[in-house]
């Protein structure tokens, strides 16, 4: 346990990874995650690790693949468009069962989008993201403190199940400073148990070679390989779900929000509670595995559920799957990389309970007003929402 200090999210993430024993980092500049490679460039040198500024995100993730295969705790970070580029390597990492850490400090999309914090990559992160049938362990911090402490958790889970783990944060968390501390003593890599599957170490006489690969071309081989992976996915879904609950004991309406949206939701819940509305929060901390079971339980106790998201509604898909139609699930959407305004979410909470539509995102009523036109949204900067 260290003293509480003021630290920027991205730097806390980098330092957290170093303290978790990360000794290899490869990355490529992209806003709003630049502080991660910047910090790593001098810090890895200090601790005797390796840092490479790659020529592209694609190269960076493949360097990660090589380094992870040596059994070294290895990491890359990027932001949304860069994470899309990394999907090739992430798919290989998953297919070769390589533990490693990938951080996505999300920004607005699609395309170049903007550089403000956003949550548009939830589906990409929780469904794998690249080609093929696979999952990533996805941790969603909501504070600088969690950004600093989740890398250790991520590495441990990744190694336990031999698969890549992702920290899914956003530009606001990456750029903000907060008082934070480390909840763990620095990990000495030499003290970690060496991986029996790793390559590049001195191979003892008579010991079999290690092979890292993601192919299985023989008849029926690939299915066997994928099903074996499904076994561990099942264990993870059973054993590794993490979430936080607030005020759920007496809640009539449940807010489900993750990451930075959960913070705006907490403020909104405080506003609504002062008005006497019984509203609770469930904050998924692991996005995969998702707290499906707990949301299902809570859905039998509440009248409805509200999902505030900085997207057109991605996490809500998992919430709806968990609820299975038992109660209505509403969306409050800020898809343009606007930080949700707590007051607006508070209005959305009231709307959801009273059947109003204010601050609720509803495709049906959108369709009533929508026109196809030239099918090109106006590209004027909006003045709505919180100025970032």
């Amino acid at each position, binding site marked *: 346990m260290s003293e509480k200090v*003021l630290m920027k999210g991205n730097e806390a993430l980098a330092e957290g990874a170093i303290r978790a024993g990360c000794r290899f980092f490869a990355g490529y500049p992209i806003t709003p995650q630049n502080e991660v490679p910047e910090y790593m460039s001098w810090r890895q040198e200090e601790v005797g690790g390796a840092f490479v500024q790659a020529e592209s995100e694609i190269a960076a993730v493949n360097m990660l693949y090589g380094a992870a295969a040596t059994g070294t705790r290895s990491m890359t970070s990027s932001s949304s468009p860069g994470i899309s580029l990394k999907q090739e390597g992430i798919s290989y990492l998953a297919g070769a069962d390589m533990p490693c850490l990938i951080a996505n400090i999300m920004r607005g999309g699609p395309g170049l989008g903007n550089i403000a914090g956003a949550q548009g990559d939830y589906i990409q992160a929780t469904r794998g993201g690249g080609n093929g049938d696979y999952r990533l362990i996805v941790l969603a911090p909501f504070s600088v403190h969690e950004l600093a402490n989740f890398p250790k958790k991520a590495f441990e889970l990744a190694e336990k199940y031999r698969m890549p783990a992702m920290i899914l944060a956003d530009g606001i968390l990456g750029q*903000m*400073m*907060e*008082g934070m501390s480390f909840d763990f003593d620095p990990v000495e890599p030499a003290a970690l148990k060496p991986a029996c599957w790793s390559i590049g170490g001195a191979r003892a006489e008579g010991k079999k070679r290690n092979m890292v690969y993601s192919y299985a071309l023989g008849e029926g081989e690939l299915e066997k390989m994928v099903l074996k992976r499904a076994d561990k996915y099942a264990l993870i879904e059973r054993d590794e779900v993490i979430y936080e609950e607030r005020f759920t004991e007496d809640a009539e309406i449940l807010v489900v929000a993750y990451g930075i949206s959960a913070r705006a939701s907490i403020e909104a819940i405080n506003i609504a509670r002062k008005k006497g509305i019984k509203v609770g929060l469930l904050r998924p901390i692991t996005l995969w595995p998702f707290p499906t079971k707990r949301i299902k339980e809570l859905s039998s106790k509440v009248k409805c559920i509200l999902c505030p998201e900085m997207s057109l509604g991605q996490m809500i898909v998992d919430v709806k799957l968990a609820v299975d139609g038992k109660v209505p699930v509403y969306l409050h959407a800020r898809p343009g990389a606007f*930080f949700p305004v707590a*007051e607006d979410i508070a209005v959305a909470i009231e709307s959801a309970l009273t059947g109003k539509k204010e601050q609720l995102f509803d495709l049906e009523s959108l369709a009533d007003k929508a026109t196809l036109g030239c099918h090109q949204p106006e590209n004027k900067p909006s003045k709505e929402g*919180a*100025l*970032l």
Partner: protein
Amino acid sequence: MYQGVRISGFGGQGVVSAGVLLAQAGLVEGKAVSWYPSYGPEMRGGTANCSVVITDTEVATPVVALPDTAIIMNEPSLPKFEPLVKKGGLLIINSSLVKTKATRTDIKVVYVPCSEIAEKVGSLKTANLVALGTFAGLTGAISIDAIASAMKKVFKRAKPEALALNRKALEEGAKIK
């Protein structure tokens, strides 16, 4: 206690570092704090701003949409943030650079000739600290001592003379009512 602050001005006026200082000072006093900057293209040559939250409990949103206090260091920041200040809130305007007057009557508006005071103190660079001093004096959200002690953490390489000068700027700012 909850204070959501927005500090805005030209890049180079120290608005971002004033915010860091404020957050660090809050931490010194054992408060929960957050700091969030504007970043990216808008930082290149234009106006920079940051959000600071100081509270006794827990910082929910780090992006201060509706500030309790806005510190306006340059002209373009006034129309941007004056409308957002919470009713009953505080608007501190650097009158050395901002010639326009605020129009709202439901908030407290204080005009501080930050640059002039800073020059009198001995360094124009301390204009941001004059404004922080005024903020500390008027809101009581933070003490001058806490800011002074935060300076040692934020400006690690500053010489004792510079720190003394900074403290003077804070104190001068705090005199303004």
